[in-house]
């Protein structure tokens, strides 16, 4: 670890190769290119969704909200499934690694964000189609329940303790929470709510409308990959800073203790800065 303490100011590190090449933070050449492709896809989605695709015979122009509402819901489902798969990979001893836990946490946060967009865009669409922003029908209620469950998952991740304890408890919760997804998905078949049923699988749209929807799905999938790469690296940096912070706090504490003298004049018998960490100390 080449990190150094600089008085009370905290930590410093020499510029990395990435920073010297203008790729500081969590970026790489791949994520930059992926970001550019995603931006092109978003521009394409906006152009097709708002200007090229035709209005629907029944819903008229409000159908344009489908090209953003459905991809956000798809992305949230994808993110929560990735969270569950990564959590299972962490719990399985042969593949246990904190990287899986970070991927799970990153994916869940992205999923919660896009679930929120799903609820907001769905409410706007509902205000046009149903004349109200919200009804307590099966699809909307189960979706709201899924949203709240994953907010709880993110809260559980922040309960404190070691990285391993965080990974264990959140992995178990992720495997339980993902069971709600089939409930949400099939709610439109099981309870026949106000929310419309499957659009693509039932082949109720075609042509430019279907193409615009697929542009949205592909673009949002690319966006998810881009966000996931950056977010899980950010979580790795947070863990590293937390670990280094604990190391530095120990060094500072020893330094303070070694300069404190007993009333009789003898100093405390504490190891000098840089000495071995006490048993049970941070790695």
């Amino acid at each position, binding site marked *: *670890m*080449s*990190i150094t303490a600089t008085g009370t100011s*905290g*930590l*410093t*590190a*020499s510029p*990395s*190769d*990435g*920073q010297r090449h203008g*790729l*500081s*933070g*969590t*970026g*790489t050449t791949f994520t930059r290119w992926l970001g550019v492709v995603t931006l092109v896809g*978003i521009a394409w989605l*906006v152009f097709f*969704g*708002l*200007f090229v695709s035709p*209005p629907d015979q029944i819903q*008229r*122009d*409000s159908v*344009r*909200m489908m090209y*953003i*509402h459905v991809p*956000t819901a798809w992305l949230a489902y994808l993110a929560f499934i990735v969270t569950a798969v990564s959590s299972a990979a962490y719990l399985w001893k042969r593949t246990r690694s904190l990287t899986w836990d970070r991927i799970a946490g990153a994916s869940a946060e992205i999923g919660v*964000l896009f679930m*929120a*967009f799903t609820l*907001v*865009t769905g409410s*706007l*669409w509902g*205000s*046009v189609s149903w004349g109200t922003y919200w009804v307590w029908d099966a699809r909307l209620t189960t979706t709201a329940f899924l949203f709240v469950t994953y907010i709880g998952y993110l809260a559980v991740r922040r309960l404190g303790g070691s990285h391993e304890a965080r990974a264990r408890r959140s992995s178990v919760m992720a495997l339980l929470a993902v069971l709600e997804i089939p409930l949400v998905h099939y709610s439109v078949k099981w309870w026949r709510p106000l929310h419309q049923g499957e659009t693509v699988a039932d082949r109720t749209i075609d042509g430019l409308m279907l193409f615009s929807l697929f542009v949205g799905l592909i673009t949002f999938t690319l*966006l998810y990959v881009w*966000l996931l790469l*950056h*977010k899980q*690296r*950010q979580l*790795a*940096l*947070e863990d*590293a*800073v937390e670990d*280094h912070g604990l190391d530095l706090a120990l060094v500072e504490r020893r330094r303070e203790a070694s300069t404190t003298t007993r009333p009789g004049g003898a100093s405390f018998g504490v190891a000098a800065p840089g000495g071995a960490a006490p048993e049970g100390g941070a790695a």
Partner: protein
Amino acid sequence: MIAMQYAKQVFGSYAITLGGVGAYAWWMLRRSRKLAEQVSDEDKPWT
């Protein structure tokens, strides 16, 4: 396009989603950059 029905809701849904994603991405990259300044290359295997 000019006479689009429900323009407020349609444009609103695009603006909220894309604006929200942009704000989240900006916040994430800014925080990552600050964190990256505090750790060495060993903790950034992707660089």
